[in-house]
């Protein structure tokens, strides 16, 4: 089954997505990642106020098969986390780009992060 790669997002090689609007990035994991992980049963998110750097492990997801670190695709301050995925981790499987988001980061730089992949480049990486 082919994974969805929405055209309005940026992507990290490690399978996180970022939606950047007005200096704030909303972060989650991709459809491809949730497929690979299978049924997600636990999510741990960074504390609000934490400073994260691009590429830094700052969250954890566990599926029925494995536990994986999640890396922030951007640098900045965590300003909001999604309580819904803590309560119902299966949202990450069913709706990875909307209600299954993980956290929001106020970017430390006003410019959009330049080292993330375009949708086309990420699709090529995963063979979608």
């Amino acid at each position, binding site marked *: 089954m082919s994974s969805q790669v929405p055209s309005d997002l940026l992507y990290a090689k490690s399978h996180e997505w970022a939606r950047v609007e007005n200096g704030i990035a909303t972060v989650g994991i991709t459809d491809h990642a949730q497929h*690979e*992980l*299978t*049924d997600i*049963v*636990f999510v741990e998110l960074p504390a609000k106020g934490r400073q994260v750097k691009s590429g830094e492990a700052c969250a*954890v997801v*566990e*599926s*029925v*098969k*494995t*536990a*994986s670190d999640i890396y922030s695709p951007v640098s900045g301050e965590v300003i909001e986390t999604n309580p819904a995925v803590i309560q119902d981790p299966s949202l990450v499987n069913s709706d990875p780009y909307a209600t299954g988001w993980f956290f929001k980061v106020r970017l430390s730089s006003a410019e959009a992060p330049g080292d993330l992949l375009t949708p086309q480049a990420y699709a090529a990486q995963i063979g979608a």
Partner: protein
Amino acid sequence: MAKVIAEMLVESVKLELPDVKTVRLQWPEGYDPGEFKTGQFITVYWPHKPKYKRAYSLSSSGLDRGAYEVTVKRDGKMGTSIVDWVDAGDKLFVIPPTGRFLPVFDPPGKHLICVAGGSGVTPFRGFVREATRRNLDTRITVLYSVRTTQDIIFFDEFTALEKENPRFKFHVTCTRLAPEHPWTGRRGRLSPEWIKSFIDDPAQTVFYACGTNEMVESVEHLVLHDLHLTKEQMKTEKWG
């Protein structure tokens, strides 16, 4: 008959390595798991956390009745709690075995080449146990990648089974040993050349790969694209 979720008593535990524990889950009285096979996995959860489930390959075989054995690495909340805390007398809920990572014992005469990384070796203990106990003519070769000799799970049991069963071979490769370490076995990562060196009759060979997605996909690529074998000759179990 519908498969039944059952609360099971931890009959015994065995610390295989400092971060790996085998847990033996006793079937309750009257428990009927239905038909289950070597190589399948069970899903477990704590009585107080029914939504938090983890799946583990059986490290026992389909011939082992009365209890399931799973061998768990300290990984995530469940792996950590099992390795650090679970003891005989505790209870876990168990969803009965399922899965298609099954050894091809029928028809006879196959050669199963089983490639494992880390705790991905656990289902292969069941494969070898069953083949040995049934005195099958199936050949099994386990190719096992670990970081160091301290990370080899089931070393003693596989070594003993190798003596008992002349059709079983166990080969380890260590990826991160210090040069001065006295290990005389293979060093370095799993390579296509090493795996290919164990194939004598491709048509009779079935490959199994259990471990990280990256490792499993590299074996899959070797078997399907380089060796041009069929999908039926490649069976995978990814950790995610």
